[in-house]
């Protein structure tokens, strides 16, 4: 029962996030979606990741959005979409419908018993490679973000490129 309510909540929040006119509001709806997803995770027994999702998805990412929207500014963009909306509707419904039609019945199984902990163990020793790669990803992400956002310095091209090797 809870699950159905949360399911509806998730879908409504997500839909509001893409529909609401102001970006800031959309970011907040996204945070709401994230929070509900975290609850759903909790109900699945994934306690640790639910917390992380709550803090990162609902917290950190929202903060980032707010920052970005502050810098970039709310901007009225015509609601008119660039491709015909019916086409978008139909194609998404067909694609998702195909998936749902085929996949959902196959998931009609018992949830299974909840295994005990072991998340830390799995993360720190089992999936070590993924973890190392996460640090690499963060490093790459930070480098890229710094490069993208840094203010333009005095244009060096003209001075440096004179002396071609």
């Amino acid at each position: 029962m809870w699950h159905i309510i949360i399911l509806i909540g998730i879908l409504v929040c997500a839909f509001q996030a893409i529909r609401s006119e102001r970006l800031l509001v959309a970011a907040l709806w996204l945070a709401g979606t994230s929070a509900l997803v975290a609850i759903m995770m909790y109900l699945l027994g994934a306690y640790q990741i639910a917390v992380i999702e709550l803090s990162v998805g609902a917290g950190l990412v929202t903060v980032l959005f707010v920052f970005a929207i502050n810098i970039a500014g709310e901007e009225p963009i015509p609601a008119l979409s660039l491709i015909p909306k019916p086409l978008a509707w139909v194609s998404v419904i067909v694609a998702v419908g195909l998936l749902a039609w085929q996949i959902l019945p196959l998931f009609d199984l018992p949830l299974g018993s909840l295994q005990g902990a072991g998340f830390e163990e799995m993360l720190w020793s089992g999936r070590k490679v993924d973890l190392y790669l996460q640090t690499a990803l963060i490093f790459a992400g930070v480098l890229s973000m710094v490069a993208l956002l840094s203010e333009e310095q005095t244009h060096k091209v003209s001075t440096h490129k004179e002396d071609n090797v």
Partner: protein
Amino acid sequence: MNLSIPVIVMAAVIGLVGIGFYCLLVTRNMIRVVVALQIIVKGAMLALLLAGRMRGQLALGQSMALTVIVADTIVAVLGLALAVQVKRRLGSLDLNDLSSLKR
């Protein structure tokens, strides 16, 4: 088909993916594109956890979901950084103004 919990969660997954893709199709705002990507990713994470739970390997599912969170948060950060830079250089977040490369 019963509305068992896995079906409900999977419906949420597919719903999130569908809504996200629909947003990618119709939105014209660069930042909203990032919102849409986030929505899709939430679906993927739920699916990972569900599969982990049902196979009795929730820990594995959780650690994979963590990796997905990290990776896609970085993507979101970069997307927002690009959006900010686009706004600075083009003065607009409209995707329609971001279509000089065509044909």
